[in-house]
């Protein structure tokens, strides 16, 4: 059954990472909850990781893999800071829905 699917090429991975990226993007756009937005940003970063690995695999040089580690490190730092901010806002506003902090406008 597996062989009928045929060879999984570079494009498949690119499509996958693009799809994940778009899902993450819509997550940021649509969802109202701050934490879910954080998660969707993480999703976008991981989508990029997939494309890095795919490119590195099909050009058989190792740069891609190294970049993945950098990206993951940065994603972790972002997540930490993001959550800290979300907690601080929750403590102050008692509200996690981003509709509530629109004081800065005009």
């Amino acid at each position, binding site marked *: 059954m597996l062989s009928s699917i045929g060879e999984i090429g570079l494009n498949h991975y690119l499509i996958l990472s693009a799809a994940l990226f778009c899902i993450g*993007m819509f997550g*940021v*756009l*649509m969802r109202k909850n701050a934490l879910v937005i954080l998660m969707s940003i993480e999703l976008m970063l991981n989508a990029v990781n997939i494309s890095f690995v795919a490119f590195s695999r099909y050009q058989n040089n190792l740069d891609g893999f190294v970049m993945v580690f950098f990206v993951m490190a940065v994603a972790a730092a972002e997540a930490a800071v993001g959550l800290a901010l979300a907690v601080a806002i929750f403590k102050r506003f008692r509200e996690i829905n*981003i*509709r509530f902090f*629109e*004081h*800065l*406008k*005009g």
Partner: protein
Amino acid sequence: MEKIWIAILLLSPLLGAMINGFRFRSQNYRLAGSIATICVGISFFASVALFSKLLGMPVESRFFNVSFFDWIQVGSLSVPMAFLVDPISIVMMLIITGVGSLIHLFSIGYMSHDERPAKYFSYLNFFIFNMLLLVMGENLLIMFIGWEGVGLCSYLLIGFWFTDKEKAAAGMKAFITNRIGDAGLLLGIFLLFLMVGSLSFSDINSAGLSEDTGWGMLTLALLALFVGATGKSAQIPLYVWLPDAMAGPTPVSALIHAATMVTAGIYMIVRLNPIFILSPNAMFVIALVGALTAFFAASMGILQWDIKKILAYSTVSQLGYMFLALGVGAFTAGIFHVMTHAFFKALMFLGSGSVIHAMHEEQDIRKMGGLKKYMPITHWTFVMGWLAIIGTPFLSGFFSKDEILWMSVHSPRGSWLLWLIGFITAGMTAFYMTRLMTLTFWGKSRVPKDVHPHESPISMTLPLIVLAVLSVFGGWLGVPHGVSSLLPGHIPHLLEVWFGDLIAPIPGLGKANYALEYSLMAMSVLLAAGSAFAAYKLYTEKESLLAAWVQKAKGLHNLVANKYFVDEFYHARIIRPCVEMSKALWEFVDVGFIDKITYIVSNAFQDLAKAVRMTQNGNLQRYALYILAGLFVSLSFVVWG
């Protein structure tokens, strides 16, 4: 040597004006008056000295051309501050300074109880200075300085009693109407400069311009100059300011609006007569305008009740005669009529001045009458002027006016129609002048109780006497050929001899047919006598007949009495639309259109700013949407672009 004379001649009135100007607050009218009179006197003696010097010089080089310094030096235009004293200008100078000093003398008395006599005399002196500049200028530009200078002085003098709103308005009206004329003169000067390349009279006259029978550049230049002349010498259509100018003190009217300023236009045309001759069309226009002005002014003079207004319209009419003379080419007759008119019109104005002075500022002749017994000297001098103006034989008016009438027929440029208009006007002149005489001096006295007319002091009557003498004997200076052949001893036409070749001869002038001349002369004398007698009878016994005629010709009478509604016409058709237009311009173009655009633009930016502000509604996801939308649009361009 004559350079010093000319300098003194010019600068003494200026000096007088300055002295009186600085002490304008002083009430001492005698001191101010005497300073002014002395200064003008000095100019008079200087001009007499120059005149005698000119007499001695040979005919062809009989002029002084003196330049003091370079005034304007731009491109090929070089205008020296130079003055030309030649037969034409010396005559004018003598008239100006002569009659001028007489009028200054008269003013001392007239201005005795005015609060600003020094200011009055400084303006009068400044006027004389400007008038001398006008007549002595060596080029058109110096003449133009004098031209506008006298306009300025007439503005100041007419509006001398400025506290009264009408008098100030009259001054302004005079200046603006003159300015319209000056605009025409300016255009004429530019056209001449375009053709000749220089502005000095000698260059223009000797530039050998070609005959211009059509409506070429030369004719347009000359007509432009004529527009200037109509502005200054009060011809149709720009004569409206002269009757209102009577708001000024009477000596001012005598000096400016009778003897000197109004003759500026005639002087200019005579000065440039060699080029005027070259354009028959221009001369025809001048003659026609002159004749029409004479006719209409005379008609208006008949129905006026203000003594000075009558004299004003009479001046306009006489000026019409002078332009008629110039139009038909009789330049000498024109200048001669200027001289004689200066004498008897100044006389009559001063006479009316002393009457008004005696009647405590009363100018309406309906409240006068029978002043003969109260003011004998004024009366008899006035009679002399009256006789001169209606053209009684062997007086100055007779010689100059009939010369013009004769030339208007005899000259190839003239025509019977022009003569006819002149002839009828002469009749009308006799009529209104006699009406004036009867209503003021003869007839029964209508003087109100509280007014006691008395004879004016000697300082006022002396000039009257001198002018009366001049009016009577002035005519002999220019005895026309027809008349001189009748008289024994064949007296030459002195002025003609004096001007010599300065006056260009009229091409195609035929031999004088004396018989025709005598018959025309006789006809005009008879007409004058007849209308004078009619006027006398109408205004003494036949009041009822007069009233009946007025009743019958109701419409015509009303029309003429209101001066053909010319003032109202100007006001309604020119001044008011102009003011309305400028209000509209200011309302709609400046405020309504241009400023509105700036408001629209600034409001547009305000709205745009509000729009930008709307896009920033503070929602996090709205911003993320902008980013991704921007990204998506550019990606679509990359992929499909």
